[in-house]
Every structure is written in structure tokens, then in C-alpha cells.
């Protein structure tokens, strides 16, 4: 009834061509858009400037050392013999130890928060994990030096006594004889790894928890209705759906572990040789090298430190981009299901 009258009215409208739907932004909107683009541009510019300045200043040192920078172990820019093999090895060692401890811990905590505890406890636990992420690195370092060190050394001694036949757990002197003295176990990569693991667990836990809470309800209920236990449901539904979150969270944590500075500086005793024995005194990391050497560095020494920082920057960037790609892809996959 009403449609008939409408169809009659429309041809009678005087306008010969359709009205343009594109509106021109007013002055205030143009300013707003410009300001927004400028803010985004500044953010990108800062990030690019980090890369540009580091590469610019590192160029001098890299030009002098050439590709040997990657496999030289010593660090004495004054004599021209410098490279990051030892420090990079130490960085990766500490990060791997930290991940070995942090992955089971954060995986279980994320499952506890997302699957086991009731709602009120859940939000409290989430807050506490966030708080843990905000605890300053220097506080973890203090704890590691003044408490953990003394208490972990017996554990290190025990591991090296009973598992010393695995090469990385052995603690030997230069001649290959086994050392059992407690002094040989201080300031090791193992202790630094434990402290770093506590610092990366919160990041990892919150990424994993988010991924787990997105596992679809229908599949969960289906598993439970088929008679599965909660662990069975977690194993068959939550973990497969959260796989992207697990991998991505672990890689994000790896990025943080590689760049961790102050806690590592406080614990380790720096050496410039590759040390496979993780329980033995002496390791190093790129960030610790920069923090310890920047003060006495000459102009050229500073350039060498910049080169080391550039390598660290590139590695964390690659790790992080991979991680966020994996997380983003898994997220969109979970939503489409």
C-alpha cells in the first residue's frame, strides 16, 4: 500500500542525477586527521631512527672488522680484535635456559587461569600476573644475587654430580678434571636463566591465556559431553586451538629474554669465550656487554658496542615479527571457527 505511493513519488523527484554521498571534511576534521597521521608518523619515525642511528654509528666498527665480527670471541676494539660470538652464545644460552623453565610454568599457569579457577579468583590472578610484569628488573636482579644464588648452588652441584656425563651439565677446569667446589658454580648462566625466566613468564602467560580463552565453547562442551575429563578436554580442544598463542607467546618471551639487561649484569661474571658448561661460573650477553663497557669505551669502542646493539636489535625484531604474525594468524583462525 505504502510502497505504491513511494514508487509513484520517486520518479517525480526533480533531481536529475543522484546526490553525491561523499562529504568533504570540515576544517576541524582535516586538522584532526593531520594530527593523527603526524602522531603515527612520529611513532614510526622513532622506530626507524633507532635502526638508522645504530647502523650509522655501527658502520665504522663493522667496516673495520668485516664479517669476522660474527665469529670472533674476544672483545678488545682497541686492538681491532672484537666480535660477538661469545656474547651472542651467552645471550642465547641464558634465553634457552629461561625458556626451558618458563614454558611449562607459564603454560600451566595460563591453563590454570583460563580453565580451572572460578571467575573471581581468575581476575585476581590476572592482576597478579600483570603486577609481576611491572616489577622492575633491578629488583629481580637483587633477589637473584642476594637470595637465589646461595640457594641454587647446591642444586647446581647436585645436577653436575649426577648428570655430569651430559656435556653441558659437567663442570670441569681447563684440564678436564671435575670441580665440585661451590665457588665454581656462582654467577653462572643457569642462575641468570632462572631469574630471567621469572621475568618473561608474565608476558608469556598473558598471551597464552588470551589464546586459550578464545577456544570455542561448542567444541569444549562437545568434548565434555562425550565424557571427557577436564584434562582430556584441554588436551583435545584448548591446546590445539591455542597452539598459535603458545608458539607466539613463547617467541615474544624469547624476545624479552634476549634483551634482558640489568638482572643479567648483576648476576653474571662476564667472560669472553664460549662456555658450554651452563652450571659453571662465567657467561655473557650482548646487553650486559653494552651495559658494562659503554662507560670506558673510546669513540671506536662505542661504535663496536653499537654494532653489537644492532645485532641484538635485528634478532629481537625478527623474533618479535615472527611471533606477532603467528599470534595474529592464530587469532583470526579461531574467530572464523
Amino acid at each position: 500500500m505504502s510502497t505504491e505511493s513511494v514508487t509513484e513519488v520517486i520518479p517525480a523527484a526533480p533531481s536529475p542525477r543522484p546526490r553525491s554521498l561523499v562529504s568533504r571534511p570540515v576544517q576541524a576534521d582535516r586538522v584532526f586527521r593531520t594530527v593523527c597521521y603526524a602522531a603515527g608518523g612520529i611513532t614510526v619515525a622513532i622506530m626507524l631512527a633507532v635502526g638508522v642511528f645504530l647502523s650509522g654509528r655501527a658502520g665504522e666498527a663493522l667496516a673495520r672488522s668485516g664479517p669476522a665480527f660474527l665469529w670472533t670471541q674476544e672483545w678488545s676494539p682497541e686492538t681491532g680484535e672484537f666480535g660477538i660470538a661469545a656474547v651472542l652464545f651467552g645471550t642465547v644460552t641464558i634465553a634457552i635456559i629461561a625458556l626451558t623453565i618458563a614454558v611449562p610454568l607459564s603454560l600451566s599457569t595460563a591453563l590454570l587461569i583460563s580453565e580451572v579457577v572460578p571467575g573471581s579468583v581468575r581476575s585476581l590472578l590476572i592482576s597478579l600476573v600483570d603486577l609481576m610484569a611491572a616489577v622492575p628488573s633491578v629488583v629481580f636482579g637483587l633477589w637473584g644475587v642476594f637470595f637465589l644464588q646461595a640457594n641454587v648452588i647446591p642444586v647446581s652441584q647436585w645436577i653436575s654430580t649426577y648428570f655430569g656425563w651430559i656435556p653441558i651439565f659437567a663442570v670441569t677446569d681447563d684440564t678436564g678434571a671435575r670441580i665440585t667446589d661451590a665457588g665454581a658454580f656462582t654467577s653462572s648462566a643457569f642462575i641468570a636463566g632462572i631469574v630471567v625466566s621469572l621475568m618473561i613468564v608474565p608476558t608469556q602467560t598473558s598471551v597464552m591465556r588470551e589464546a586459550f580463552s578464545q577456544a570455542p565453547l561448542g567444541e569444549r562442551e562437545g568434548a565434555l559431553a562425550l565424557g571427557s575429563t577436564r584434562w582430556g578436554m584441554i588436551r583435545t580442544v584448548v591446546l590445539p586451538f591455542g597452539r598459535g598463542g603458545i608458539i607466539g607467546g613463547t617467541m615474544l618471551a624469547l624476545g624479552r629474554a634476549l634483551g634482558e639487561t640489568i638482572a643479567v649484569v648483576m648476576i653474571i661474571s662476564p667472560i669472553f669465550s664460549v662456555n658450554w658448561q651452563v652450571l659453571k661460573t662465567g657467561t655473557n650477553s650482548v646487553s650486559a656487554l653494552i651495559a658494562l663497557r659503554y662507560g670506558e669505551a673510546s669513540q671506536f669502542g662505542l661504535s663496536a658496542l653499537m654494532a653489537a646493539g644492532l645485532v641484538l636489535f635485528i634478532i629481537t625484531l625478527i623474533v618479535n615479527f615472527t611471533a606477532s604474525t603467528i599470534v595474529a594468524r592464530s587469532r583470526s583462525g579461531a574467530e572464523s571457527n
Partner: protein
Amino acid sequence: MSVIESPARSTPAHEQVPTARTAIPVRDDAVGQRRDLRSVPLDDAFNVVGAIVAGIAVATLLFGWLTPMTGFVGWLVVSFIAFLGIYAVLSSLRADRLTVSERIMTALFYSAGAILLSALVFVLGFTVVRGVPALINPNFFVETMKLAGPLDPLSVGGIAHAIVGTLIQISIALVITIPLGITTAVFLNEVGGRFARFVRTISDAMTALPSIVAGLFIYAAIVTLVTHQRSGFAAALAISVMMLPIIIRASDVVLRLVPNNLREASYALGTTRWRTVWNVVLPTSRSGLVTAVILGTARGIGETSPVLLTSGVTAEMNLNPFSGPMISLPLQVFDFVKSPEPHMIARGFGAAATLVLLVLALFLIARLIGGRGPGQLSDRQRRATAAASVRDLRRIEGAARPFRSEPATTSVSTYTTDPSEESPS
């Protein structure tokens, strides 16, 4: 099993008609016992407690008498492993394999949470307890280290210069990061487009920027090229580089939660984009934005390594961020504990405890303000919104009075309660 069997026995009518027809069960009063879905069964509770006690006992025996093992951490690890084993054995006495694995996994989840929580509490508690000897001296908060040597007792010298330095540096960093960070987050959400996606990728990558690299960058770009000296301002810039991605990311998440129908309602009223952002999007997400900024501040305050390279170490009060070294709390902690003197280490713990308490306070404030989604109002805001609605109604009705005859008292009362459920736009 008894629960399932009992209704079958109590309905004999069911068995007399073996045809494949749906029958309505006969109602009688013999309702089976209600199943308890929530609480832990008694024998399982006994299993847990018994396994814990047995695990501790086994570890104590091993450590005290049977083997030469020592150390508190080792004792904990051994008791935990013994607990898991004994718990599995105890559970398998009464349950099948599936149930045992379910119980063991649940025990593992809970113990991971307990490890994490106790680590957090222990790290914070250890710092505060070790810091008490320094904190109980009031001079610790009002004096500087200018006249105090490493051997002086704790009643001389303090960290006033570091507290002031931290406050100045974090204020400068906030002045830079709040406008830049929130505007970038607004750009990501409200303007969008290909460039916005690129900015989001870059800011995500920036969250993983190692703090020492941020310090190195400011050292190369600002200290050696512009100011030619370490200063509080350079340190504030380094902290800004670290805080910016945190604030962008947290604000981005908060702005994304603003319901789209609020924006659409605003556009439908004919507002510009800018007015929608300023009058709808930002006020709606205010508490979340404040939380994002406070959490970013808590992270920024504890940054040590960028400050180490850029601010320099001093024992004197320096109020000018543009000239001379200016120390901050985390750097002061790092500097104190490098000394082997017990008094300096005690001061280090005192400064660390101050830092921890500062971070805790910031965190509590953030939790008190935050925790509400966008559009959810506090009681005070709800009353203010209701009062504003009443005023609007009076104004509208005052303008419309010549055309209306009925009194408006009833509609006023409904309007005062209604907006509490609505969003504040």
C-alpha cells in the same frame, strides 16, 4: 552408579511397556540424591593432604638423614616430585587411569600458579624486608648521598636526590608519551587505513625493543650529537621510547572496546569525526586510558638500563633535567649494590623497596580506576549523568510547555533511573 540406577527401579511402568514409544516417567517422590558437582570428594581431599605430608616427609628424610643433599630449593623440588608420585599412587587406588591423569594435571596447574605467586610475593617481600633497616631512618627519604661515604651508618645520607630524579624523569616522559601515545592509538582506531596497520605493526615491534638498545639509541642520537652530556632529559627520552609502545598498545585495546553504536549515534546526529572522538570515544574510555597510562608509568619507573647509559650517576640533588647527571631510583639501586659495603647494600635494598612500594601503589591505583569496561559508570558518574538528564528534560519541556498539558513528574522519575543502565554519551 547408584544415582543412575535408582530412577529405573522406581519406575516399573516403564518396563511393562517395551514398545519404542516415548513414555512420560511416572512421578513419585523417590528423587535420587542430588549430585554434588562442585566440591572435592572427601577421599580426594585426603589424598591431596596425605600426599603433601608424605612428600615433605620423604624430602626431609632424604635431606636430613639418608643422603648428603642440602639446600632449601633442592628440598622443595624433591618434596614436590615425591608429592606428585604419592598422589598418583593414592589416586590410582580408587580411580581409573583417566581420573588419575586428570588429577595429576590439575595438581600441576595449581602448583605452577602457586610457584608463580610465591615467587612474586617472595621477590617483593624479600626486597621490602631487607630494605627495612634503611627505611626506618627518616633521613633516608630527605637527605642525599652527597656527604655520606660508603662506611657511614644508615643514619647518614639518603635517596632524596634519586626520588626527585625519578619524578622529574617520569614527568617529562609522561608529557611526551601521553599525547603521542593516545593520539597514535586514536589514529589506529578512528582513522584506520593501510598506514594505520603499518603503524600498529611497528608499535608492536617496538614493545620488544631491548631496553639497552633504547638507551644506546638515545646515547647515540641525543647525548653525543645534541646535548654532549648525560642529563635527566636524555634519560626521560630513553624512558619515553620504552613507554610509548606500552601506552599505545594498552590504549589501542581500550579504544577498541568502545561500542560502535555510540560512534554511529554520534555520527547520525551530524557531528564531525573530531567531535565524535573528543565527546564520545575518549570520555567513554577514560578509565581504561588512565589505567593504560598508569601501567605504562609503572613500567617506565623501573627501567634501569636505558637510564644507565643516558642519565649518569651522581650523589647530589640535581633539579635541572637539561644539565648535569641526574640519577633515578633503579639506577641508584644498581649503583648501591655494586659496593661491597653492607651499609651500601642495605641502602640499595631500601631504595629498591621504595621503588617496589611506588610500583605497587601505582598498580593499586590503576586497578581501582580501571576494571570497568568503557561505558560502565561509577556511582558518582551515574548520579551526575542522571542529574544532567533531568536538567535536559526540564529544558526541553520548558521549551515545549505551551504545546503540552500533562505534568512531567512521572517522566522525570523514570529518566533519573534510566540512564544508569545506559552509556554516558
